[in-house]
């Protein structure tokens, strides 16, 4: 098998990953129809129940209950909502901004290019998670603020990759030809540049999705994300820290949810990258 001729069909692990992601999306869209219990219902008589397979566990709470007697499984199901929605909203807007600036910089060059790449340089001087924490601390926590902060820290990755791709495309013959027959820049961009940027953009988007899910969970863990009582995987872990010694299930299951989701995104992302464009192998993960 030559290295270029990679298989196009997804392997079993990629299919599994796609299935898991589909489940995550379904949970996010309709958690209340799937979750067995109300994730907010406090029941002090049923505090810190272990998972069902341990002594003292109850079938009513398969993954156990937390320090307020809330059902862990239901909270994880509802928590998917925050992870999935924050990630798609943040990556979507960051993508739009990054692609626009990237195309403008790569295609036109000039001051747009100089300004946006300088801003990108400055932004990349901050470890992304540090910038995210500091910004949320100033703006305040909450769903939309988290989305704004993750957008602000994520557009750079799109812009740089898209700019590079647009620069290469600009010099290609079919672009020269389009210009030669008198096509306007807007037409060249929409018809010739943007469609060719799809590959790298999709690859960046999958890398970004995994990054954003982890950063959002980290913010939640630090108490800076979506605020309780709304369950998110991150803020569940934040509460669980005080019970590491006594109730391991509080901190174990939400973490599994995050890790499985990111693993799935990465697996699908790798497959998409190899399928769309093996030359993009150099694009690895982004700095957290």
């Amino acid at each position, binding site marked *: 098998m030559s290295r270029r001729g990679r298989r196009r069909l997804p392997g079993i692990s990629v299919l599994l990953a796609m299935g898991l992601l589909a489940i995550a999306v379904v949970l996010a869209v309709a958690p209340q129809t799937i979750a067995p219990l109300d994730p907010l219902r406090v029941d002090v008589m049923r505090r810190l129940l272990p998972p069902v397979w341990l002594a003292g566990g109850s079938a009513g709470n398969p993954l156990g209950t937390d320090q307020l007697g809330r059902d862990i499984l239901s909270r994880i199901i509802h928590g998917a909502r925050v992870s999935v929605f924050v990630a798609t909203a943040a990556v979507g807007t960051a993508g739009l901004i990054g692609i626009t600036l990237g195309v403008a910089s790569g295609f036109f060059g000039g001051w747009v290019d100089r300004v946006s790449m*300088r801003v990108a340089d400055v*932004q990349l001087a901050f470890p*992304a998670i*540090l910038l995210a924490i*500091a910004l949320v601390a100033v*703006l305040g926590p909450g769903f939309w603020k988290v989305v704004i902060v993750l957008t602000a820290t994520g557009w750079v990755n799109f812009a740089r990759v898209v700019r590079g791709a647009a620069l290469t495309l600009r010099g290609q013959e079919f672009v020269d030809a389009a210009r030669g027959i008198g096509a306007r820049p807007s037409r060249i961009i929409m018809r010739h540049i943007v469609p060719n940027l799809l590959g790298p953009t999709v690859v960046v988007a999958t890398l970004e999705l995994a990054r954003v899910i*982890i950063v959002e*969970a980290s913010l939640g863990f630090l108490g800076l994300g979506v605020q309780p009582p709304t369950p998110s995987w991150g803020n569940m872990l934040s509460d*669980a820290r005080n019970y590491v010694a006594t109730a391991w299930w509080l901190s174990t299951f939400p973490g599994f949810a995050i890790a499985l989701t990111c693993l799935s995104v990465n*697996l699908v992302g790798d497959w998409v990258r190899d399928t769309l464009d093996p030359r993009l192998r150099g694009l690895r993960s982004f700095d957290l």
Partner: protein
Amino acid sequence: MQQFIARRLLDAIFVVLGVSFVVFIMVHLSGDPVLLMLPLDASQQQVDEFRHRLGFDRPLLAQYLRFLTGAARGDFGMSLRFNQPALRLVAERFPATAELALVSLALAAGFGVPAGVIAAVGRGRGWDVGIRVLALVGQAVPIFWLGIMLILLFGERFRILPTSGTGTWRHLVLPAVSLAAYSAASISRLQRSAMLEVLGREYVMTARAKGLRNLTVITKHALRNALIPVVTVIGLQMGTLLGGAIITETIFAWPGVGRLSLQAIQSRDYVLVQASVFVVATVFVLINLVVDILYAVLDPRIRYE
């Protein structure tokens, strides 16, 4: 070469200027920095007094110039909570963070590079699959959760390692491992693909055809060339590690800059937040500068890009 260094230095200075502006403007993003810093029940008189004392009643540009000249002299103002110069507090905590980040970097490279090489050499075999699965998991597990799981296992269940504070090398094990995992995974994946690329090259085939021992071919002919892209990435991992240190330090009560800045955020001590964010970003810029220059020394082609 001098020209190259001069250009990079100039870039770095510009970036640090940009960093200072971001750090300065950050506290203004909420609208009123004074309300951000004072407790919610502060009286109007206290607010006005505070505003005047910290100079927030002046024009924005004047404030920035003052911030910039202060930062240039290492003066970020007094920490609101500790009532000590903010930079001194950050400087006191910096060695702990540097220690943690450097040990983690060594761990990440020390595991990542050999793992990537082994995986590439044994491509498709059990080793390769095992290492790739580990790397995928390593990139999917958030630092803070890994930290909690390590505490759960080694601190609570087996009780063989301390889970908080500092002192002996044993205190360093859990924080360093949880911080290093993500970087080790990234490095091993990159090393594997760089190695695969090189193993297919003609000079490697020539070396094999000459009848050189497999180990010689791998270490002398393949690895040396496959290390070049990895070295750059190892440098860039410092950013990930410095960022991750915030979380690791918080979980393991490690007395570094990360924990300090998070505590500063929680106690609304934004003077201290500014100082620590500025220091971390500037250190990162310097590291990148050094990596760039080293890279140009190692690979002369870079200088003429």
